[in-house]
């Protein structure tokens, strides 16, 4: 197992390097002169070429591409992504304001989804074509069909109309005031968790159904094992690989941000930050956020692979 972990960890380095190179190149290939954009296009009428050259020099855009990449990469290694062109503050500072919120939302929504999806998906599979199965399927299809923002707005309106109460408008970290944090985060977590649980429930149900038809499950029944042992120990564990992949991918997406949910619940998360940065042509922020999203996908994939190995010992011996 330790050799497997070491191999996977080593693979992260070239993967991240590739991601960094790609992010950097994409930002250079897209049309538009960043220095000119900072001056607001041609808004100020004539722009002094000296000022433009000075701005390019300040941003390092007058250097050869490989020097620019090296400088940026060296900064990334030290968590220095430069300064936001819009606020003038270090990108990492801006990111750290928003990351706790997005992480909390992603973790809590994932937890809610796993807690709901795995038991219900499993029960629906075991009790296939009974009223329980139908109920789980209807609710999960509802989660997929109804847009999250609509559920979110509905949540807020119902609370306001019936209780005269609305969630706080500003994020308070759980370590500052857990109660206020709960009041704010519970609704987006429920909204996002519902949709996410719907996807995972359906995946769990179908994979458990598939595994329940395997020969070794029939053998387990034939050996006279109890239902709980057959389903949980033998069927569930073996049906988890695709479910784990799904949970991992969705979790990484959640860290990358949920623009619409964040907008509805006035959450200042990574998703809105990225959209705002694109709108304000704040390219150091865009570059950093895309890299961070790539980074979170790489880490989540690593965790998923390690979990695979735990669930299926054959993987770690390959």
């Amino acid at each position: 197992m330790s050799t497997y972990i070491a191999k996977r960890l080593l693979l992260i380095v070239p993967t991240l390097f590739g991601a960094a190179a790609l992010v950097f190149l994409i930002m250079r290939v897209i049309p538009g002169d960043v220095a000119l954009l900072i001056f607001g296009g041609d808004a100020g009428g004539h722009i002094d070429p000296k000022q433009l050259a000075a701005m390019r020099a300040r941003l390092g855009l007058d250097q050869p591409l490989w020097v620019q990449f090296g400088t940026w990469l060296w900064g990334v290694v030290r968590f220095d992504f430069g300064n936001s062109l819009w606020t003038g503050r270090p990108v990492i500072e801006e990111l750290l304001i928003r990351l706790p919120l997005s992480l909390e939302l992603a973790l809590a929504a994932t937890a809610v989804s796993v807690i709901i999806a795995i038991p219900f998906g499993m029960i629906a599979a075991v009790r296939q074509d009974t009223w329980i199965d139908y109920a789980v399927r209807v609710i999960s299809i509802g989660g997929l069909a109804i847009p999250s923002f609509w559920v979110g707005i509905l949540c807020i309106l119902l609370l306001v109309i019936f209780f005269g109460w609305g969630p706080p408008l500003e994020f308070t970290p759980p370590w500052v005031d857990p109660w206020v944090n709960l009041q704010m985060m519970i609704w987006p977590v429920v909204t996002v968790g519902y949709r996410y649980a719907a996807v995972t429930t359906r995946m769990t149900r179908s994979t458990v159904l598939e595994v329940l038809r395997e020969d070794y499950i029939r053998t387990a029944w034939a050996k006279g094992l109890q239902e709980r042992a057959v389903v949980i120990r033998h069927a569930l564990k073996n049906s988890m690989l695709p479910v784990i992949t799904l949970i991992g991918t969705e979790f990484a997406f959640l860290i990358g941000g949920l623009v619409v949910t964040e907008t509805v619940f006035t959450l200042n998360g990574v998703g809105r930050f990225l959209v705002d940065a694109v709108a304000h042509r704040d390219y150091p922020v865009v570059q950093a956020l895309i890299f961070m999203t790539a980074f979170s996908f790489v880490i989540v994939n690593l965790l998923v692979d390690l979990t695979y190995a735990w669930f299926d010992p054959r993987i770690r011996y390959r």
Partner: protein
Amino acid sequence: MAGVLRHRTLFTVVALAVVVAAATPAAVQAADTPRRGGVLLAVIGADPPSLDPHQESTFATLQLVAPLYSTLLQTDPYAYPKIIGDAASEWKISPDALTYTFKIRPGIKFHDGSPLTSVDVKATYDKLISPPDGVRSVRKNAYAAVTSVEAPEPGTVVFKLKFPSASLLENLASPWNVIYPKKYLDKDPNYFKANVVGSGPFKFKNYTRGSTFEGERNTDYFVKDRPYLNGYKFFISPETSVRAAAVRSGRAYIEFRDLPSAEVDAIKKQLGDKVAVQQTPMTGQFGIAINNTVKPFNDVRVRKALTLGLDRYTASKVLFTLTSLRDVGGLLRPGTDWALPDAELQKLPGFGKDQEKNRAEAKKLLAEAGYPNGFKLVLKNRNVKLPYQDFAVFAIQEWRKIGIEADHRPLETAAWFADGRDTGSFELIIGPTVEASDDPDLFLRRYTTGDSENWGRYSNPAIDDLFSRQSRTLDHKERSKLVQQLQKVVLENAYYMPGLWWSRNVVHWTKVKNYVAPPNHYANQKLQDVWLSED
């Protein structure tokens, strides 16, 4: 000119008083005994493109930073459009109306502790009137009459004019023209895009982009015993329903811009006397800028067809409850002395009341221009729902009736400004004209050649000439005639398509005292007299 101002002041004050008194107890609020303390919580619908009001023209910038700055003059918070001093305590106008001398109040300090003197006022207006390369000044053309700004002594500022200006005082009272300390401008004229050093009743406390903006009481404010509030805090949310819910639940006490009537009614129904609604007309309208530099919009027949295809009278009925867009009018606010009389307005393309006739005329013009089956266009817009997107949706379905298919593209605020104002990268774009007062100089400069707000990028010497003449005409009646002539030239050529004039619903909890809503969401945002009767 003083007479003109008095006349207009009286008209608008009376109109406002009637509306406000009918709708809210706000008019009597000033009689209560002010209470100190508390933080005013407000919601706002957009994030600012930058924090420099000299370079921006969105409420998203001004409402956040106005309480942090002083201006030379200001609109009276209780009596729009009366002009009173802010940093200036008094002023004199020479008999030939070519020299304006202002006395600066002694003892005004910027938030960094340095004194505000005439040198700072001069530096501010020099930046506004003649911005350095690479610095945008949205309102520089409003000062075409000014030859120089002088600071002969620390307490005196002199504006010298090459010709009389009918609107100089109104421009100097513009809430956008905040006074910056010279030493920061000298270092970097773009410094205030991301930083704040003002001398207003509140000091900058914190800004988290996309989330909140906060100010705290300036204990050194030059007006004694002001402000009453300990601070103010804006929560940024682009969703109208979320902002309405925030006011409804008491998480925010006020929305300064506008909430649609449907939301206002729901809030009133639920909260009853706990909230007040101030309904005012608006010195602004929502229309559509047409890019005159690209085909086929450089063809007057196509432009006329587009404006003929827009049924403004039905729009008014449909859009009012959703968006507060209400009045059909030309380029100046209906009901003012500057507006075109109805009879004359209805003769202009798109303003006739027989819409079937208008559509037939539009189709004929399109056929003549080579588009008998219509064509496709792209309508860019700002991604602010109220009222931008609702208005665009209405226009698009109207144009479909004359064979024009419009693809609607909402953009983030900064991208919308960049494409519309800065680079002209559009065919049609929703472009409102909202100003801090009704003065024609403010509203009409955008139709002159080369103005930074001339999003349609047209040039017509007749418009330039009429603008210049009205701007230096001090006789009100004479000026009004020129203003109306100018409007006719713009509308006959369909250089710009006015949509509807806006109205304003300011909803606030009754514990917010001493805020009297003017007919726009730019003026009276300093909050120096506002107080909270409870937290």
